[in-house]
Every structure is written in C-alpha cells, then in structure tokens.
C-alpha cells in the first residue's frame, strides 16, 4: 500500500480511490463567494501585503496609491521619515482621497468636502465645522480623533514595504520566516533605484498566478526562450523551498550548471528546446555575474500578493492587484542598485526585454493563466490534479516539483476554506 495521509490537499488515501496528490475544485477560480471571502479573510486578514518599495516614496510628503486585494490604500512618507499606510477612503462619505498614482503633498485632502488629513491619516480639520454665521455645522460632540483614515500596521524589510489590516498577525520577519527573509535580504542588499513600471491586465483569477510563480515544472516547457537559451532549465542545479508555514516559496536555479549534452538528451525534441534558434543580436543575453553564490534565477513568491525576482540581471517586484474572480492586474516595478554604473544600467535596461508583459520569458504566463480560466469557467465540480514531485507540500532539491503550489493551497484552505465554499 502506498504511503498516504487523509487530507484533501496534499497526499491522500488510496483507499478512497483518490490518486496521491492535490486536487483543487475549479470554482475557487470562478465563484464570487471565494473572491469575497478571500478579500476579507486573506487580503484584509492575517497576512502582510506588499504595498511599495521605499524608493518609490523617498521624501517627506511622498505618497503612492495602490491596493491590497481590491481595497485602495495610500502609502505615505511622513516628515519624520516614518511610513504610513491608510485606506484611501475619506472617513466622511467614502470618497477616494488620493486620486493620483503618486505625488508629494504636505497633507492628504479629500476634494469632495476638503476634509484634510495628516500624512499618518489623522483628521486635521473639517470645513464649516462650526457652521456659517451660527447655522449648520457638525454636532457639538464631533471629535476629530474619531474620524481619521483607517490605519494599517506597516513594516519595511530592506526597502520593501508591507502592510496588514490585522492586529494579530506576527511581525513581518516571523511571518516570512528565516529562509525567505534571508533571500529577500540577498536581493535587497543595498540601496536601489527605481527603473520603471509596467502594468499587465490578465483575464484570469489571481490564484492561477500564485500557482504559476510556485511552479518550476512549467518554466522550461512553456517558455521556449528560457530553455533554448539556458536561462532556466529543470535540469539545472536548483531548489524549490518553502518557509515553515509553506505560505511562501523560494525557487532558484543556476545557469552555470547547464550541460548541453545532458540537457539535449533530457529535452530531446521538446518544442521548448530549439537548438536551431539563435539570436542575431546576442547582446540581449550578455550580462554580469552579480551574486557570488552563482544563483542566476530567483522567484520569491510571498504570500499573498508579491513576487520578488532576479532573472539574470533583471530585478523586479510584481504586485498582484485583484479586480474580481476572473481578472487581476500585475504591477511590475523594475529596479537596479543605486550604485550601478552606466554599463550596468544599460544591461538592466536591455535585459528588461526578458520580463514584463512583453518579456521573452514571461509573456507566456499571461496566456497560461487565461487558457486555464477559459476552460474552467463553466465546470464547477471539476478539479485540478497537482502531484509533480510526490504530491505533498514538500521542499525539493530539484526543479521537477509542484510542492510549493500545494503549500499555497494548504494555507488558502486554512485561511479562506475550500470544500465548504464549493456550491
């Protein structure tokens, strides 16, 4: 008899005629009930959500408008350099307070009735509070202190800013765990400079992208460019590891471990291993070795809304913003280090052709998410089957695994629930 564990996510019993592996009902990707529940229990629940890079709000008065799930928030830099995150919704009658994507202001002010807030969200004043010529005005017991913007807890780790609606969730580095914290610190090892944004609208559920970024199995099979030019192959030295809670994943590989003879034997006539494809201008792939550990690809998937990546010399955060059960926005913010020289600037700019919505090794992910969404939309009882690597939420010292996807679903089940919400 096979080794089994009776849980619907992870290995399951052969006695129930279920194959070993993880099965997820497709309604998690299509039903509004899941979407509403995850906004409340996950994005506004006990999770730390990425909201900004500190370098996006370097100066006092700088702000950036963004979203946690679909809740609008503003990140501000205060006069004392501290960071605040508040819900971008006036305490009066709900208007959007910050309407620009970013800017610099002495304080926040709602245009509707000019309610003004400090950068930390405290209400400063209300026009006509005492009325005009003794008429009108707010009730006598109106207390400014009771009517500020909703404030979130904020923590920064080496330039990445996170916020949470939860008073209970553990401090950020405990939430991330030592492995993930270490590898965030590896990439965010010194001051950065912002190189620009790219925004991508994907007609699919955000969790399909959470799966995609915890999936080393697909990367050399879907992305021909990755495989053909050896940027990533499942034959490379690499691992797919998780934190203790299995919420987050850390996937890395080393292009230095490519072996042309072995790799062509493993991939044989695979579509994505095309030895006849060469570049007219190979300068696209000319980079610099940046990290002494030889790791050339890192995908850190931080639960629930962030991917921090290093692919060759490209560095970027990808923030997931949900738009509904069947669509999300992916905001790519590319960066370099503040001390990059002119040649490194040029390398990063050219290699940015690899990533983003038009990226040679990333554009396919948009299509992969959509072809799943299109096929699962009407069949609510059907389920996926996830078992590569053994069928459990297990770390792997190789790249032929889906263990981290199962880890994601275990956490989602605990936080949002799965089977009980399938209608």
């Amino acid at each position, binding site marked *: 008899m096979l080794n089994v564990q009776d849980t619907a996510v992870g290995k399951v019993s052969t006695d129930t005629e279920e194959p070993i592996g993880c099965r997820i009902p497709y309604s998690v990707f299509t039903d509004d009930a899941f979407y509403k529940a995850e906004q409340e229990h996950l994005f506004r629940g006990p999770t730390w959500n990425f909201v900004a890079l500190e370098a996006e709000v370097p100066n006092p008065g700088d702000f950036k408008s963004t979203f946690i799930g679909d809740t609008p928030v503003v990140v501000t830099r205060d006069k004392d350099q501290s960071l605040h995150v508040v819900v971008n919704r006036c305490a009066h009658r709900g208007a959007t307070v910050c309407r620009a994507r970013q800017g610099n202001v002495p304080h926040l002010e709602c245009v509707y009735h000019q309610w003004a807030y400090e950068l930390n969200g405290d209400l400063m004043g209300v026009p006509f509070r005492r009325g005009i010529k003794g008429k009108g005005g707010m009730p006598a017991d109106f207390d400014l202190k009771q009517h500020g913007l909703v404030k979130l807890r904020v923590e920064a780790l080496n330039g990445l800013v996170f916020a949470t609606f939860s008073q209970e969730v553990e401090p950020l580095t405990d939430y991330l765990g030592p492995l993930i914290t270490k590898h965030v610190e590896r990439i965010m090892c010194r001051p950065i400079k912002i190189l620009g*944004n790219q925004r991508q609208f*994907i007609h699919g559920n955000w969790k399909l992208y959470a799966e995609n970024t915890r999936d080393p199995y697909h990367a050399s099979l879907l992305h021909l460019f990755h495989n053909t030019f050896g940027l990533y192959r499942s034959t490379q030295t690499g691992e797919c590891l998780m934190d203790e809670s299995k919420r987050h994943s850390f996937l890395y590989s080393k292009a230095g471990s490519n072996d042309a003879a072995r790799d062509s034997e493993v991939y044989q006539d695979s579509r994505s291993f095309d030895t006849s494809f060469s*570049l007219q*201008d190979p300068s696209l792939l000319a980079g610099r070795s940046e990290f002494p550990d030889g790791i050339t690809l890192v995908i850190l998937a931080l639960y629930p809304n962030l991917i921090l990546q290093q692919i060759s010399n490209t560095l970027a955060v990808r923030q997931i913003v949900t738009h509904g059960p069947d669509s999300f926005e992916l905001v790519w913010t590319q960066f370099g280090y503040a001390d990059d020289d002119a040649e490194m600037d040029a390398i990063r700019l050219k290699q940015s052709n690899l990533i983003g*919505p*038009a990226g*040679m090794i990333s554009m396919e992910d948009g299509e*992969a998410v959509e072809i799943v969404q299109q096929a699962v939309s009407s069949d609510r009882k059907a389920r996926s089957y996830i078992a590569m690597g053994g069928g459990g939420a297990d770390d792997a010292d190789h790249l032929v695994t889906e263990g981290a996807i199962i880890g994601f679903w275990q956490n989602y089940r605990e936080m949002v629930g799965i089977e009980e919400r399938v209608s």
Partner: protein
Amino acid sequence: MDLSTLPRTELLREVTDLIALHAELIDDDQLEAWPDLFVEDCHYSVLPRENADRGLPVATIFCDSRGMLVDRIVSLRRANIFPVHHYRHIISTSRIHEVRSDAIVAHTNYLVLQTRNTGRSFVYNAGKYVDEIVFSSGKFLFRSKKAIFDTDLIDTLMVRPI
C-alpha cells in the same frame, strides 16, 4: 542629401508614407519585412507614458539594433505563446517637429485595435510615435522610433511591435 533644403510638403509625404507602411506591415502580418524599415544601428522602444513622464527608462520593448528587431520577430514566430490576434493601426496626421540636415523628427498619434478569435475588437494601445527618420541608401528609414503609450494596463501581454 541635406534634408533641411527639401520642401516641407515633400518631407511630410515621405514621413507619412513610411509610417503608413510600418503600420501596414504589422497589421498584415508581414513582420519579417518590418525590420527593413530601420537602419542597422537603430533604436526602437515601446514605453509606458507613466515612465516617460517620470524620466524612468524602462520600456516594454527596447531594441538598440536591427538585429534585435529581427530576434523579436523570430521569437514571435518560433518561441512565444500568445493569444491569436490581429492589430489594426489607425494613424493620425503627422507633424514635423524638427528638420535637421540629416534627420526629420515627426510626431504622430496612433491607435492600435486588437481583435482576438472572439471576434471583438478593442483599443489595445493608444499613444504617440516620436520618430527620427533619415535618408539612407536611397530610402527614408527610421533611425529611432519611440511608441509612448497611454494605455499602460497592457491587456494580457505584448508580443507584436506597436
């Protein structure tokens, strides 16, 4: 040839022709001929207005040689996976911004409609071309072409040049 000595109407006609041909080659899927509209040592970029306005360098597509244009097309044909689609460019009247002895700088608004196999067309990318056009080997060619786009929420992905 000193371009600044030529009549403006003639320059405008050449600019208009080149930009129209650029659109037509892309829309008609004659992509292999598209790099030939550029000089060898060219610059082509498709960049979000958001970055352009803030002076940030990241472009969605960035090529600094004709070889890179060819590689984009070969990659589209052989490597990339994307929804089946067509483009339809709608091009505004061009305005000649500057004439130098060796180059014309022209500004042109564009709209790219996309149609996938659902049969519906939608505005995929709206923006402005900033073109630097030179006379080289007997032809007017792009030395630099920037498509600075307003539609910075790219629908699904971008594989085809703008």
